[in-house]
């Protein structure tokens, strides 16, 4: 028996542990145990079969692949299909049982109830089934809860039986293919390749998930509120009244003040970040020595590594009061405690590293020949920097700033904590404004029902946020890319 390298044993053990952990946390203990045991069984059967085949073969004949590959092949075919099957089961079980439940409720299926009433009813039934009974439930709810509990139990048992069947099927089919000539290594590697391909589609699935969920919910929102009102309306009051007769019970969904507030705060942020970041970049690329750079750059990078919730706290506790003292007290201007200026400044601090790093890269990418050419004409270093290097680096700097703008627009916690909730249309930085992200959080925090315009409007905002930041990024990356190519 050849010695297997220790690292490989460790890596295999690690992978197995991770796999079992995922299965355990996603699927629960029993399915995991069944899957692990059956896969182990498959491994053993694979090994036994190829050993047997090798013994019966003529002397000197060897199997096509190493023995371990045959065992792994069978184990993979036992474990993987049933794992996927189980995953699908777990994800679909909830919705399927819910539909069955709705179908079995005369009141719900007859269409007498609104969707929100149905979901309330469903959660009541679930609560009752789980033993959380708050008041005396209606008899039909008790009955449904009992049905629900029974179905969940049945589903659980069926699930175990089904995965065992799928696993055994995979085991027998793959084991039957094992002969001396069977190319087990290629078989295993094909599975590995497919697994790799499948995981790389997760990124695509995520994007599809984002687009689909945003578009779907936003579409439902625009069914209730016209797109034109959303895009051009000047009043944003999404509060839906609890009683029909309350004032503004319909809510107003004109997002212009929200967009304007977002632009105001991001504008302040990018202005501040440029004021700090660009001179820093100039200093780093022109005046700082190697050692200074190696110290200063990481410190500046820390600014973008601090969690945004920390910045939010900082804005509320330090910057806002300081701004109020200065503008409100010293200058006597009317200053809101949640001024756009405070949120914008702190957000600006956060994106300083974006501007400084990308500008530094852009300036440093300008060929040395440009600098030499300017210096040789008798230009000072400042003239060389401001009149030759900066203009040459401008596309790269602009690209970096666009990335920073996109980051600022999508930033949430700083504005949630330091900016206002009320949407007002103003360009006064000392006033309180609100942003897209603040509205999304405010609208969706707490228990949410997916059937009123208030909740859905958050997805409308989210859709535009996504489209806008994505667009900015694509443009910025293209500018940066083209700039790089120019000097390569």
């Amino acid at each position, binding site marked *: 028996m050849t010695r297997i390298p220790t690292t*490989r044993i460790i890596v295999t053990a690690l992978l197995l542990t991770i796999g079992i*952990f995922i299965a355990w946390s996603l699927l629960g203990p029993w399915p995991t145990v069944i899957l692990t045991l059956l896969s182990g069984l498959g491994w053993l059967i694979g090994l036994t079969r190829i050993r047997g085949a090798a013994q019966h073969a003529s002397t000197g004949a060897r199997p096509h692949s190493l023995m371990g590959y045959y065992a792994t092949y069978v184990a993979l075919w036992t474990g993987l299909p049933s794992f996927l099957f189980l995953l699908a089961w777990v994800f679909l079980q909830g*919705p399927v049982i819910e539909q069955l439940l709705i179908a079995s409720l005369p009141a719900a299926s007859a269409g007498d109830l609104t969707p929100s009433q149905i979901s309330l009813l469903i959660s009541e039934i679930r609560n009752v089934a789980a033993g959380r009974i708050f008041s005396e439930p209606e008899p039909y709810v008790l009955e449904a809860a009992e049905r629900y509990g029974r179905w969940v139990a049945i589903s659980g048992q069926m699930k175990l039986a089904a995965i065992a069947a799928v696993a055994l099927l995979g085991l027998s089919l793959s084991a039957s293919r094992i002969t001396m000539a069977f190319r087990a290594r290629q078989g295993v590697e094909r599975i590995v390749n497919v697994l790799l391909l499948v995981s*790389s589609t997760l990124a695509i699935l995520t994007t599809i998930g*984002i687009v689909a969920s945003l578009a779907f919910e936003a579409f439902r929102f625009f069914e209730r509120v016209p797109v034109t009102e959303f895009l051009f309306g000047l009043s944003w009051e999404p509060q839906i009244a609890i009683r029909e007769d309350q004032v503004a019970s319909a809510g107003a969904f004109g997002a212009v003040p929200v967009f304007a507030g977002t632009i105001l705060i991001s504008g302040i942020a990018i202005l501040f970040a440029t004021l700090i970041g660009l*001179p820093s970049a100039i*200093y780093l690329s022109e005046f700082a020595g190697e050692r200074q750079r190696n110290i200063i750059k990481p410190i500046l990078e820390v600014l973008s590594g601090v969690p945004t919730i920390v910045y939010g706290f900082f804005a509320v506790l330090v910057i806002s009061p300081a701004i109020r003292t200065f503008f409100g007290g010293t200058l006597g201007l009317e200053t809101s405690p949640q001024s756009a200026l405070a949120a914008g400044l702190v957000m600006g601090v956060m994106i300083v590293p974006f501007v400084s790093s990308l500008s530094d890269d852009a300036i440093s990418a300008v060929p040395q020949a440009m600098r030499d050419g300017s210096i040789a004409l008798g230009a000072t270093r400042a003239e060389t920097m401001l009149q030759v290097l900066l203009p040459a680096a401008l596309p790269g700097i602009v690209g970096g700033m666009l990335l920073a703008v996109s980051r600022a627009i999508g930033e949430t916690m700083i504005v949630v904590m330091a900016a206002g909730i009320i949407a007002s249309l103003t360009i006064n930085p000392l006033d309180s404004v609100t942003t897209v992200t603040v509205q999304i959080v405010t609208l*969706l925090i707490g228990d949410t029902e997916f059937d009123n315009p208030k909740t859905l409007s958050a997805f409308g905002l989210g859709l535009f946020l996504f489209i806008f930041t994505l667009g900015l990024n694509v443009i910025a990356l293209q500018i940066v890319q083209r700039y790089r190519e120019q000097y390569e």
Partner: protein
Amino acid sequence: MSSRETLFGIPAPDWADPAMQRRMRRRHGGTHRLRWLGIAAITGAIGLLLLLLVSIFSIGYSAFTQTVVTIDAPVAAEFIDADDITESNWNRMARAAIATLFPDDAAGVRDPDYREVLSRGGYNVIRNTLRDRVIANPELVGETLRITVQTADPFDQLAKGLVRRDTPEDRRRVNNRQIAFYDMLVEEGRIERRLNFWLLTNTDNRFPEMAGLAGALRGSAFALMVCFLISFPMGIATAVYLEEFAPKNWATDLIEVNINNLAAVPSIVFGLLGLAVFLNFFGLPRSAPLVGGMVLALMTLPTIIIATRAALKAVPPSIREGALGIGASPVQVMTHHVLPLAMPGILTGTIIGLAQALGETAPLLLIGMNTFITDVPEDVFSKSTALPTQIYIWFDSPERGFVSRTAAAIMVLLGFLLFMNAAAIFLRARLERRW
């Protein structure tokens, strides 16, 4: 030399001209100013970072100690149910214990001023401690038990000098009578300041002096675990596929573009995804670390993929060629040679990605990890908060005492981030090989 001839009518600079000398001074001054502008900007940026850290530390450090009162609680036989000790009147016993603290002028056990000195959650602590210890050891009946409970936040602040005695009484959070009582307790040696372990061992509480991070820490740990378990293998698999096996075609390009764009999608959009898909469509439990971890995994994935690809690229082709040359299959080359060599780089990227995920707040708010929960989550399905969302909850609480708790929790969060980033830097410095 100052009298230079003019060639072809092109004027030559006359350096001796006073106007020209002024001009030169101004030009050189420009370089000087540019340098100082840069220094000022960098100093400003670093100064702001320091201001941030210092202000958080100066607010937060006080929450790492807590003022406590020691009570000598009599376990009087009159409260004990002789037949079934578990049925004893623990409430009355607790009230009696508290009453032992009060001076003679107290208007009974419920004296409104004096009651406020102890934490409002302290009553439960006293009752439960008495109950648990006496039931565990019935021989304690007739003895006195020493029990320490937190003071209410205003008195904690008083002890720390944050509530000042020289403030006029009507603008002070504690009145003169309460201060007199407090001073009496100090004199009796019952007041003590302790290291606030409760901050780490207690769960969330409505009373700041009782609130702790235990639930949030466990929730964050669960969420990060789920995040790691999904994003680490998937990230490596994706990177390996794209870097080593993917054919060069439009589908591969699509995946690459996708990953680059995902890295720039605002975090809150991932929260919307989690809400709409994981909670609403698949019906996964709200506020669960499982869902939080899954959302964070999707956000961390691009970081890990990009780091892994960089690490794989850094492995020189000679190693692949060497292994291929002796007949190893591409998968064997990858698993036996390239991946182990790239592992330090991959781990560094993973740790940095996880550190980002740990500080991420917005998506967790949307999936409801900001609920008030007083239990430590048992598994990834339980309702839970996470460290950053707990910070947000405390930040959002009106009680004054939560301000320093918020800052203290931020210090805990920054501590974890510092540790993780230090680990990443250490890994990079020690293990990463340069070719």
